[in-house]
């Protein structure tokens, strides 16, 4: 034991690794900051829609059909006085205010994006953990997932929506299903590599039952890549929802979404481009913001992934 005493100063504490706090590193990433700022703006627009000078987005007024942006409509109120309503983004073929429709349309897009991301990550996480941990199920689960992935997401979504009634829920389900395999693959690959780590084996050998083992030692490793994956899913869900609505199989036309506004504007695109232009810009901006956020998160949370995707 004399050696141990002599050497006690050699085995000194390693200085804490120069780790900056994750939050600070995120704030230093321009993609994260810009993406989050644009998204925050979009969410506040969606939430504050009734107070942003909008009128009922579904209100039809044949008198003011197909007006250009900036058209001033004179309204006669109940008490006989006149007031002016400015159609900042013009009106569509049914005389609905495009500005109000675009602002309210943000609700559908963001709702679909966020809920598809959450639901597909939740379901994919469970399936992925099972596939990665229970070896004999792996082959079966992964072949089913491969099968799902082989069908183009849009076609699968159209098929699901056509089988059920149209509606927000149907659209979300239709987009979630083709997204699940991607999450499953990701989670499974993390589980397969982490379960070989000595600390997982050490936990097994101190008698940790399977469920706590997965929750304590394996699950936390899937969180950073999943956050990143969730943003990509959200971006793609917003796009798919817009495409479904554009094709007329999405959310019913009385609820405005960026996709169905554009679909309705298609016929008169040459004369009245604003019907497609404004929702198109917002859609592109939102998807860009989500992707920027995702790339930034990936670079800060999970540097190894930047090579893979």
């Amino acid at each position, binding site marked *: *034991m004399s*050696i*141990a005493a*002599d*050497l*006690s100063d*050699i*085995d*000194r*504490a*390693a*200085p*804490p*690794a*120069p*780790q900056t706090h994750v939050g600070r590193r995120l704030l230093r990433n321009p993609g994260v900051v810009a993406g989050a700022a644009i998204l925050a703006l979009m969410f506040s627009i969606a939430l504050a829609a009734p107070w942003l000078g909008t009128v009922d987005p579904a209100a039809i007024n044949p008198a003011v059909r197909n007006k250009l942006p900036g058209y001033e409509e004179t309204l006669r109120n109940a008490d006989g006085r006149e007031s002016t309503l400015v159609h900042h983004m013009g009106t569509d073929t049914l005389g609905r205010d495009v500005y109000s429709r675009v602002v309210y349309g943000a609700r559908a897009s963001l709702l679909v994006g966020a809920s598809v991301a959450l639901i597909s990550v939740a379901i994919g996480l469970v399936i992925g953990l099972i596939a990665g941990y229970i070896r004999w199920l792996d082959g079966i689960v992964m072949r089913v997932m491969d099968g799902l992935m082989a069908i183009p997401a849009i076609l699968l979504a159209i098929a699901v929506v056509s089988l059920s009634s149209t509606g927000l829920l149907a659209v979300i389900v239709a987009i979630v299903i083709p997204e699940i395999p991607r999450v499953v693959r990701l989670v499974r690959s993390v589980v397969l590599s982490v379960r070989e*780590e*000595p*600390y997982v*084996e*050490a*936990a*097994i*050998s*101190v*008698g*940790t*039952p*399977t469920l*706590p083992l997965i929750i*304590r*030692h394996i699950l*936390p490793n899937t969180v950073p890549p999943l956050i990143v994956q969730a943003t990509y899913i959200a971006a793609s869900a917003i796009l798919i929802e817009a495409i479904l609505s554009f094709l007329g199989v999405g959310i019913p036309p009385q609820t405005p979404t960026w996709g169905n506004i554009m679909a309705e504007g298609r016929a008169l695109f040459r004369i009245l481009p604003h019907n497609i232009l404004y929702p198109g810009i917002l859609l592109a901006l939102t998807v860009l913001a989500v992707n920027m956020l995702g790339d930034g998160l990936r670079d800060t949370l999970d540097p190894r992934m930047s090579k893979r995707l």
Partner: protein
Amino acid sequence: MSGSAAAVLEVRGLTIALPSGADRALAVDRAGFSVNASEIVCLVGESGSGKSVIAQATMGLLPAALRAAGGEVLLDGEDVLAASEARLRELRCTRMSMIFQEPMTALNPVMTCGDQIDEVLATHTALSAAHRRLRVLEIVRDVRLPEPERMIASYPHQLSGGQRQRIMIAMALVLNPRLLIADEPTTALDVTTQAQILELIRELQRKHDTGVLFITHDFGVVAEIADRVAVLRQGEVVEFAPARELLSHPRHDYTRMLIAAVPSLEPRQREIASDAPIVLSTEQLTKTYRRSGWLRRGPDVAAAASVSLEVRRGETLGIVGESGSGKSTVARCIARLIEPSAGRIMLDGEDVAPLAAGALHRFRRRVQIVFQDPYRSLNPRRTVGDSIVEGPMNYGIGRDAALANARRLMDLVRLDPKSLDRYPHQFSGGQRQRVCIARALAIEPELLIADEAVSALDVSVQAQVLALLDEIRTELNLAMLFITHDLRVAAQVCDRVAVMQQGRIVEQGPVRELFEHPQHEYTRALFAAAPGRNWVFANDGRTRAG
């Protein structure tokens, strides 16, 4: 002392700064030493001492974050620190060459070995393709590779580790450089292969009058190969002297401490009661892996074949073998981290080999394992306290009681009980290994398996952890299964030793008997290859040249 007239490499006052925020300001601090023609200088130091940084600086390969802040590195009188990138490219391979620890990653996996050697010649000489091929075959023969024609047509993955390192050496020496830098070239190799590679470097260096800067952490290797030795601590050369002198009369305290920490090959003597109860015995334990194909069954590979051993209470059984010998497979079968294919694992008279996962819960309490890599065996996201109490809480002990016990265990493994709420990255490798030992002890096992538990540690830390394991085994009267590739370590902690080769135990017996009269030829080969076997290090006061 240094015949500077013949110095191939002369390092003077070399200072290399670390980026701000590192654990110290300088990676290398005014280091000075020299390498003469046809001489081997060993640069010895523990991890983080800056030995590889010196090699990188000499080759002009410093990572971008590091920069030379002062001093000079003279290669045949020319300062390479001041050389341009173009000049460095000229110098590499023609005047100085380097070989690395891991030949698999240093070689290009998609080029044949011959093409890689040929590339060196094509870059630096004007030889025709036919002449280059002759030279390649000649150097491959020089590094004692069998069937040179086949070797140069092979890809790196088709060769063994030792053969790959020979290819690296061939590449490095094909242009007869004045200086060869060898950065831990044998650390990743088995001991028998290591002995051959050391011999090869020695032979080629003599033949071509090459100066060799040999970087190592292993004093056995130093005793084997060095003419002169420079000892590096935290970037400073604390002692630079002829090998024989330095090994037998180290002057600096740090050198003395390092040499004293080298475990002796002389087995220790300890009486164990032969009537102590047998804690663990295996009978014909076998683990075969099947390479399964889609259409036809692949051949079975026996990782462990008919292994029978027993460990008594208070006794340490060592399993010694080279990589791939199956020693870790046996350990993992016994800990039931993998399922044995056949045979019995008797623990207190009960066979645990056929138990299903659910039934193992009761058994896990009695066998614990400490792994090799202290950086990966603790969950980085949980405090060490959480890691230690996890086991006891799995067996129904309350968190408070478990924490109180954890504090006592931290004391036992000589760590501050207050640091239970710290995270693994705040500890050094040796400290983490202590935490792992505390975790293993927390559920009071009867058998402790140490799977290469000290192999990843620096020699001074290794000595401490070994002493700790030994002390704990005595104090708690544990049975211990000690897996190692290092005969010196085995000599110091084991009471009995089993030697494994290709999945089988070829010989087992009391450590003293086995070390003094090895019966099996493989055991003898292992001893013959142990680096520095003829040297008794200044351990326990004994100091003499062998």
